[in-house]
């Protein structure tokens, strides 16, 4: 299982090279990896059906109790199958869809990183590991949405998705840390066991809100739904994969996974119910006003996500079972319809649904698949979608919360879904053949094979829903505490209330669709919300953020070195001085000049004189030389007090600094005295106070001993453990080697940074 996740990451490194080698065949070849993973998870089916979980733990930082712990139970199994199964289709579809594209290798790289991180999210048992993978999905999604990076809209959409989901990611981190410290563990299974400890924590409201913020942003719940339709800038396979069947369901997964932990908190389920209801109706209405193929589907996805969340929020065994079934139903028809949208766009060059019709004669196979998926979406028996919808309606009828408002919202939403199903599944293929930019013909195998598989599955699960029975029962067990009732999936539930509503909705929905042009006018006033909606708030927020950043940069980092130094020293003096002031009684200075030798005194005098000289001299060269005197003087002090290493380094550094300064001065204008009297006075005051504070701290530090000094340890063990007599060097390369490694890395980056700055300046000339 660990291997499954990491094989995808490992493979992603090689895709750009492999893509160059295999060219057109790469799509088919690459899909073998997700296919074999699908088969691997399929082989675990019997284990899942017995209600067992498969766990794997791999120590990462044992000292901090931080390990890669993975577990596979019913919920993870469902998601893993979706990720790998749909992933297989997406990979060979993209190979054909993006054939000959310049950046195909790069595309596959991000796609596999995404697949790996998504699999990581649904398999990890440690919430910190989950968080890492969660962020990786946002990141890889950024690259996938912004794939057409030369288009401004793509970049905007990618950044928007990253910022919105990134906000959720931060919320998740905070929530996870708070909850983790309340329970004392970061393992989800432990959280489920000790749920009472967790929900009696004083921070439970904050934890719940933050977790939900993470889930809602990721799963595009109102008011964060706006990023999802914008993300349709991505190539179609990406939309089908990330933005309908997998990534957006990560939030759903999180809610489902943590449901047994939080389900007793009213805040948890009321918020979820409200968000679910609002999102489904908002998505449905917005979808009705769209004409672009992918956009209609995107808003429908928003609706579906709201529906699943709504089901999960009810928290009964029945509704959670319905949610699981609906996740599968939705993934099957929505991924298929997205892929068909891509195929239609690929073959006709037309994206507007109003201008597409009658493709049945030219693309017969695609038309049949689209019809099946459309009917499944509308919930027509005997397709799988019908079962999903029946379960959905029945769960809604059983719940007490928000009754009867919820029934109305749910019915209206279903109405719009039927409408959208007609619009996307039927409209492009039936009626009179319309003229399109490209002459339409049947899509190649790679483009229709995937939707075909999904359509067959939709029919198959619809006719034999029993195959899912034991799976659903086993999974629900882990997701709902105290569940005793078994859920049986069946095509025929009898003439009950749900069936009645379902059929009415179907009939009215079709009528509604036929009168689309007339009814659209009813929604005209809604256009106002577009300019006032949450996306506007997002834009305003970004604008404010940018202007604040700009203003503070202008003040604090305006390009003049003297202000940088000024602010840094001022902050240091202020903060240190504040602490010293608060603890003045504990700090004492002891003056003891008795053992100062005459030559030491002279040396110090020389250093002070040279320092003063460097501030008043009018020639740059002389100022540098007097600074050099200061440096050499300090190195002599090092020699006197027995630190030859320091002294040596100091001398070489001083020499190089003189060279550096002279080279830099070459570029400066002749020396001019521009500083006003006031600024000189200000700088002098700051310099004096910084010096005074430092002197005080050094003197005070002589007397304060917080912990036992570590120097004797180094002195004793330098030769014994590290085989070196030069303690300074042994500390640098052995005892504190990790620090040194960090320092040389910083040094290297700083060096390259300076080089780049110099080159940039040259470029301007």
């Amino acid at each position: 299982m660990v291997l499954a996740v990491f094989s995808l990451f490992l493979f992603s490194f090689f895709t750009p090279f492999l893509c160059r080698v295999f060219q057109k065949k790469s799509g088919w070849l690459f899909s073998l990896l997700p296919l074999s993973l699908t088969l691997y998870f399929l082989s675990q089916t019997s284990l899942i059906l017995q209600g067992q979980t498969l766990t794997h733990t791999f120590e990462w930082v044992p000292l901090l109790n931080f390990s890669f712990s993975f577990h596979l139970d019913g919920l993870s199994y469902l998601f893993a199958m979706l990720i790998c199964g749909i992933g297989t289709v997406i990979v060979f579809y993209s190979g054909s869809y993006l054939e000959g594209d310049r950046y195909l290798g790069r595309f596959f790289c991000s796609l596999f990183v995404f697949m790996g991180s998504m699999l990581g999210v649904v398999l990890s048992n440690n919430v910190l590991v989950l968080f890492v993978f969660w962020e990786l999905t946002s990141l890889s999604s950024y690259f996938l949405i912004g794939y057409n990076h030369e288009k401004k809209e793509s970049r905007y959409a990618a950044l928007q998705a990253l910022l919105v989901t990134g906000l959720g990611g931060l919320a998740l981190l905070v929530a996870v840390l708070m909850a983790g410290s309340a329970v004392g563990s970061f393992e989800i299974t432990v959280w489920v066991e000790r749920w009472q400890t967790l929900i009696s924590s004083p921070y439970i409201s904050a934890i719940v809100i933050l977790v939900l913020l993470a889930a809602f942003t990721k799963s595009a719940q109102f008011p964060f739904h706006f990023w999802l339709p914008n993300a349709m800038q991505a190539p179609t396979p990406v939309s089908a994969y990330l933005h309908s069947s997998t990534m957006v369901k990560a939030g759903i997964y999180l809610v489902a996974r943590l449901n047994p932990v939080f389900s007793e908190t009213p805040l948890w389920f009321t918020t979820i119910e409200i968000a679910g209801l609002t999102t489904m109706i908002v998505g449905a209405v917005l979808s009705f006003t769209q004409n672009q193929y992918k956009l209609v589907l995107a808003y429908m996805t928003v609706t579906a996500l709201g529906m699943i969340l709504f089901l999960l929020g009810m928290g009964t065994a029945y509704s959670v079972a319905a949610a699981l079934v609906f996740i599968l139903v939705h993934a099957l028809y929505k991924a298929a319809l997205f892929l068909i949208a891509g195929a239609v766009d690929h073959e006709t060059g037309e994206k507007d649904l109003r201008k597409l019709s009658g493709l049945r004669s030219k693309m017969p196979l695609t038309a049949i698949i689209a019809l099946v998926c459309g009917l499944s979406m509308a919930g027509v028996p005997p397709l799988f979608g019908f079962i999903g919808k029946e379960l959905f309606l029945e769960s809604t009828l059983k719940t007490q919360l928000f009754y009867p408002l919820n029934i109305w919202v749910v019915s209206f939403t279903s109405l719009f879904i039927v409408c959208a199903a007609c619009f996307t599944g039927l409209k492009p293929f039936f009626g009179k053949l319309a003229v399109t930019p490209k002459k339409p013909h049947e899509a190649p195998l790679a483009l229709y094979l995937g939707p075909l598989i999904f359509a067959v599955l939709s029919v198959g699960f619809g006719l034999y829903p029993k195959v899912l029975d034991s799976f659903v029962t086993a999974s629900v067990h882990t997701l709902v505490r105290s569940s005793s009732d078994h859920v049986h999936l069946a095509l025929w539930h009898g003439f009950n209330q749900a069936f009645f509503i379902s059929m009415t909705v179907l009939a009215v929905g079709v009528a509604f669709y036929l009168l689309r042009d007339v009814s659209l006018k009813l929604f005209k006033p809604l256009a106002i919300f577009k300019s006032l909606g949450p996306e506007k708030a997002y834009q305003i927020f970004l604008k404010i953020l940018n202007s604040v950043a700009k203003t503070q940069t202008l003040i604090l980092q305006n390009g003049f070195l003297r202000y940088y130094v000024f602010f840094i020293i001022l902050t240091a003096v202020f903060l240190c001085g504040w602490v010293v002031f608060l603890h003045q009684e504990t700090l004492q200075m002891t003056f003891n000049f008795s053992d100062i030798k005459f030559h030491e005194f002279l040396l110090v005098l020389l250093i002070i004189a040279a320092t003063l000289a460097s501030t008043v001299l009018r020639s740059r060269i002389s100022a540098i030389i007097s600074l050099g005197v200061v440096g050499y003087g300090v190195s002599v002090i090092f020699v006197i007090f027995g630190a030859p290493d320091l002294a040596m380094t100091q001398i070489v550094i001083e020499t190089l600094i003189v060279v550096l300064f002279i080279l830099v001065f070459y570029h400066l204008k002749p020396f001019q005295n521009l500083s006003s009297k006031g600024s000189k006075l200000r700088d002098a005051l700051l310099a004096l106070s910084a010096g005074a504070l430092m002197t005080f701290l050094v003197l005070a530090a002589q007397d304060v001993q917080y912990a036992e000094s570590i120097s004797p340890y180094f002195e004793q063990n330098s030769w014994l453990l590290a085989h070196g007599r030069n303690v300074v060097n042994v500390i640098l390369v052995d005892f504190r080697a990790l620090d040194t490694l960090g320092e040389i890395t910083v040094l290297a980056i700083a060096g390259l940074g300076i080089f780049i700055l110099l080159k940039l300046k040259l470029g301007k000339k």
Partner: protein
Amino acid sequence: MHSIILRTATVFLKYLLLVFSVYLLLGGHNEPGGGFVGGLVAASAFILFAIAYNVEEARKRLRIEPAVLIGIGLLTALFSGLIPVILNKSFLTGVWFHGHSEIFGDIHIGSPLFFDVGVYLVVLGVTVKIIFSLLEEV
């Protein structure tokens, strides 16, 4: 800079400085010195040369592009830390080889030496890179 005295002196000083820098590097574990100061001394040898002659000549003498040196140095330090990992110790633990030969007497070679070589190369690379770039602008 056209100074015959400086140029002539540089020819000798350069080798002296380089030998001294290697001495500092190798002896640094027991005597004063080490990779950092060694790298600085080596850098000053090339910088002296660049001032006395010109940057192009100095680059030729260095043979390797400074940026590459930085990379090699970082990798050397990193890999010296990975040697103990292979031996199932934690990252950057000192691993020592003790041997005896007729010519050199007792030999002690440890992974910290390679680490120090990495530091030496990074410091040399960074210093030379910055000062060469500045010199080229003059």
